[in-house]
C-alpha cells in the first residue's frame, strides 16, 4: 500500500529544461571549440596572439592607411610617410593592366566619359563580353543546349577572339600580337591552353592505354618528358628552338611559341589526370560496350570517357588552375601578360613611392586569386552535383 503513497514519484513528464548557459551560445561554442582542454587553450592563445600580430598592420596597409583613388589624389599622397597600399596607382594604370599596349579606338579616344572609356577598347571589351555571355550559360548547370554552347565556346569563340583582336579583316585595323597585353593575354593563354590541352590530354591518355606498342611508347615518352622538365625550360625551348625547327626564313609569332609550350606542357599533365579516370573504371564497362557491338571509338565516346572524365573533374579543374597560374611564366620570355604589365608599371617613375611595387603585386595576386579560387569552388559544386554514387 505504501508504494502508492510515494510522494516523489512523478506521474507526468517534465518539459525539457533549457541547456545550461555555459554549454550554449557563444560561451558553449567557445568552450567546445577553443578551450576544451589546457593544450587547446594554449593553442587558442597562440592563435589569437598571431592574429593580433598580423591582422591590424595588414588591415592598416590594405585599407586603413591606404591611398584610395579620387579627385585630386596624386602620387604625393602615396609618398607621404607611413601610408599603406597606393590603390590610386592601380586605378591610374588599370587600362594598361587589362589591355596592355592595345591601341585605342581612334574616334572614342578623343571622347570623354564612362561610355568612351569602355568604347576606347571596344574590340577587347567585346571579346570579354562575348566570353562571359558564352561561359555563364555553359557553367550554369540546369540550362539546356550544352553541346551547342560548348561548341560555340571552345571552337567558334577562339576564332572570334583571334580575328577581333588581330584585325586585318572586316575593316578592322590590324593589331600585332606584340601589342596585346595585360589580363587579356593572360586570359587568352589560359583559354587556348584549356581548349588544346583537354582534347590532347584525352588522346594521349588513350594512347598510353593502347595495346599497340609503338603508339603506347610514343605517348609515354611524350607525357613523361614534358612532365619531368620545368615549364620555364619548355618556354625557353619554345622561344629559342621553335624558330630553329621551322624552314629557313620563316618566323614564328612570339605569342604562338608560348602558346605551343604552355599547351603541350599542360596536355601532358592532363593526360595523367585522364588516365587516372580511365584506370578507375571497372573493365566490365568496356566489355559491356564491346558486347553491344560498339567499336572502339563508340565505346570510348559514349561509355568510357563520360564516366572516366566525371571521376576526375577535380583533377581536371586542378590542372586548369595550375595552367592558369603557370601563364604568369610567359612574362619571363618577354610576353606582356598581367604579371609583366604590373612589373613594368612598378618601374614607372610617375608613381614611384615606397609601396608601389608591393601594391602592384598585391593587385595581381588578388586577380589571380579570384580566378583560381572561383574555379576550385566551381569544381567542388560540380563534384557534388555529378556525384551519382550511392555511398553517401
Amino acid at each position: 500500500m505504501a508504494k502508492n503513497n510515494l510522494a516523489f514519484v512523478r506521474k507526468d513528464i517534465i518539459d525539457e529544461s533549457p541547456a545550461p548557459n555555459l554549454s550554449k551560445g557563444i560561451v558553449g561554442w567557445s568552450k567546445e571549440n577553443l578551450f576544451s582542454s589546457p593544450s587547446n587553450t594554449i593553442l587558442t592563445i597562440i592563435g589569437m596572439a598571431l592574429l593580433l600580430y598580423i591582422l591590424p598592420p595588414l588591415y592598416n596597409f590594405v585599407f586603413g592607411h591606404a591611398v584610395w583613388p579620387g579627385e585630386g589624389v596624386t602620387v604625393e599622397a602615396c609618398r607621404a610617410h607611413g601610408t599603406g597600399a597606393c590603390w590610386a596607382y592601380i586605378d591610374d594604370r588599370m587600362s594598361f593592366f587589362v589591355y596592355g599596349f592595345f591601341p585605342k579606338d581612334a574616334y572614342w579616344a578623343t571622347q570623354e566619359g564612362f561610355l568612351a572609356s569602355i568604347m576606347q577598347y571596344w574590340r577587347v571589351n567585346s571579346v570579354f563580353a562575348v566570353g562571359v555571355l558564352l561561359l555563364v550559360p555553359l557553367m550554369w548547370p540546369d540550362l539546356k543546349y550544352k553541346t551547342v554552347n560548348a561548341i560555340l565556346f571552345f571552337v567558334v569563340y577562339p576564332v572570334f577572339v583571334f580575328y577581333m583582336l588581330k584585325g586585318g579583316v572586316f575593316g578592322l585595323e590590324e593589331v600585332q600580337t606584340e601589342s596585346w597585353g595585360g589580363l587579356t593575354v593572360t586570359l587568352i593563354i589560359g583559354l587556348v591552353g584549356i581548349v588544346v590541352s583537354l582534347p590532347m590530354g584525352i588522346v594521349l591518355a588513350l594512347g598510353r592505354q593502347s595495346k599497340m606498342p609503338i603508339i603506347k611508347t610514343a605517348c609515354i615518352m611524350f607525357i613523361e618528358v614534358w612532365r619531368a622538365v620545368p615549364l620555364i625550360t619548355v618556354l625557353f625551348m619554345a622561344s629559342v628552338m621553335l624558330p630553329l625547327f621551322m624552314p629557313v626564313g620563316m618566323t614564328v609569332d612570339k605569342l604562338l611559341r608560348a602558346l605551343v609550350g604552355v599547351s603541350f606542357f599542360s596536355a601532358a599533365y592532363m593526360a595523367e589526370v585522364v588516365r587516372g579516370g580511365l584506370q578507375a573504371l571497372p573493365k566490365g564497362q568496356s566489355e559491356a560496350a564491346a558486347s553491344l557491338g560498339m567499336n572502339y571509338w563508340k565505346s570510348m565516346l559514349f561509355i568510357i570517357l563520360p564516366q572516366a572524365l566525371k571521376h576526375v573533374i577535380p583533377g581536371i579543374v586542378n590542372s586548369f588552375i595550375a595552367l592558369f597560374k603557370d601563364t604568369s611564366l610567359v612574362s619571363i620570355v618577354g610576353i606582356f601578360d598581367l604579371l609583366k604589365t604590373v612589373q613594368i608599371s612598378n618601374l614607372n617613375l610617375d608613381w614611384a613611392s615606397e609601396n608601389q611595387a608591393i601594391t602592384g603585386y598585391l593587385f595581381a595576386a588578388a586577380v589571380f586569386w579570384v580566378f583560381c579560387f572561383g574555379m576550385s569552388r566551381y569544381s567542388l559544386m560540380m563534384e557534388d552535383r555529378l556525384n551519382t554514387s550511392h555511398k553517401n
Partner: protein
Amino acid sequence: MADQNGSHKNVPKPSFVNDPKVRGIFYQLVVMAIIVAFVVVVAQNTAANLAAQNKSTGFDFFSQSSGFDIFFTLIPYDRASSYWDAFVVGMLNTLLVSVIGVFLATLLGFTLGIARLSNNWIIAKMAMVYVETLRNIPLLLQLFFWYTAILKTMPNVKQSFEWFGSIFVNKRGIYFPKPVPDDIFNWVILAFFIAIAGAFLLKHWAKKRLENTGQRFPVFWASIGIIIIFPALVWLVSGANLSFDVPILKGFNYKGGLVLPPEFMALLLGLVLYTAAFIAEIVRSGIVAVEKGQTEAAQSLGLKDGDRLRLVIIPQAMRVIVPPLTSQFLNLTKNSSLAAAIGYPDLVSVFMQTTLNQTGRAVEIVFVTMMVYLTLSLLTSAYMNWYNSRVAMVVR
C-alpha cells in the same frame, strides 16, 4: 547440333581491311612514319638554320672559359673557370635550394595539414586561410613579392641587424660565421655519425625489448642524449679546435663568413610557403582517409594517444600521402627554376640563360638542361616508388 558445331567454322573471315591486327599494324606504321618524317624535317630545318646563321655545333664549348661571374657558388669559381664549372655551380645551387626547400616545406606542410584538422577553431581556420590563399596565387608572383618585400624591409649594410656580434642581416644577405675545423675535428664528426648509428641500434633494441617484455624505453630522449653527448666528449678529450671565420665590416660590405644572398632567401621562402600549402592538403586528405574505426579500435586496445598516432594512424595515412608528396617534391625542384626570374644563379639562370646567350649553342644546352631535370625526376620517383612499395598495403 551439327549446325551449331560447325557454325564457328562458317563465320566468314573478316576481310583483310577489317582485321583488327592488320589495322593495328597499319595505324602504328602511319604514326611511326609521321614521327620519323617530323624528326627528319625538324633536323633538316635546324641544320639549315644553324648553317644560315653560321653557328658551330657540338659540346666543345664546355671546356672554354666562361668569362662571367656568379655571386653565389658552392665550389670555387671565377671568370676564368670553364662553362662546365658554371654548369656544375648552377646545378649545385639548384640542388641546394631544392634540398633545403623540400625539408622545410615538409615540416611546415605537415604542421599545417594537422592544424587544419585541429579541433581548435582558430587554428583550423587560420590553416585553411593560409592554404586557400597561397595555393591560388602563382608562385612566380609570390617570388617577386618576397624578393621586393625582403629588399624593402632589410636594412642597409651600415645599419645591419646584428646577433651575438657574429650574425648580420642586411640588404646584401644574411652573414653567418663560417666554421673552420682543424684536422683533429674530423674525429668529432666521425663520432657524430657513430652516435647516429648507435641511436638506430638503440631503437632496434628498445623495440625488441618492448615486444618481448612490454617494458618501454625512452628512445627519443636517449637518442638525442647520445647524439649530443658522445661527440661532445670526443671533442673535449681529443682537444679538437673549431674556430669561426666571423664576417667583418670592411669598407662597404661584410667580408668573410658564409653569405646567403637575398635572392636565395626569397626563392627559398617562396618555394617553401607555396609548396607547404599543397603538402598540407595532401597530409589532411591522407589523415582523413584513415577510417574512424581505426582510431576507435586503437583506443579500445588501450593505446595511448601518441602510440595511436604513431603506430596506427600515421602508417596508414602515409600510404595515401607518399605518392602525391613525391610529386610535390619534384614540383618544388622544378619550380626552383623560377630562380631565373629573380636572379638567383640556379641551373636555368646560369646555364640556359647566360651560357646560352654567350655561346649560342641552343640545341645542346636545352638538351643538357632537360636531361638534368629528367634525371632528377627519374631518381626521385625511383626512390619514392621503392618507399611506396615498402609501405604499401599487404593484402592477406
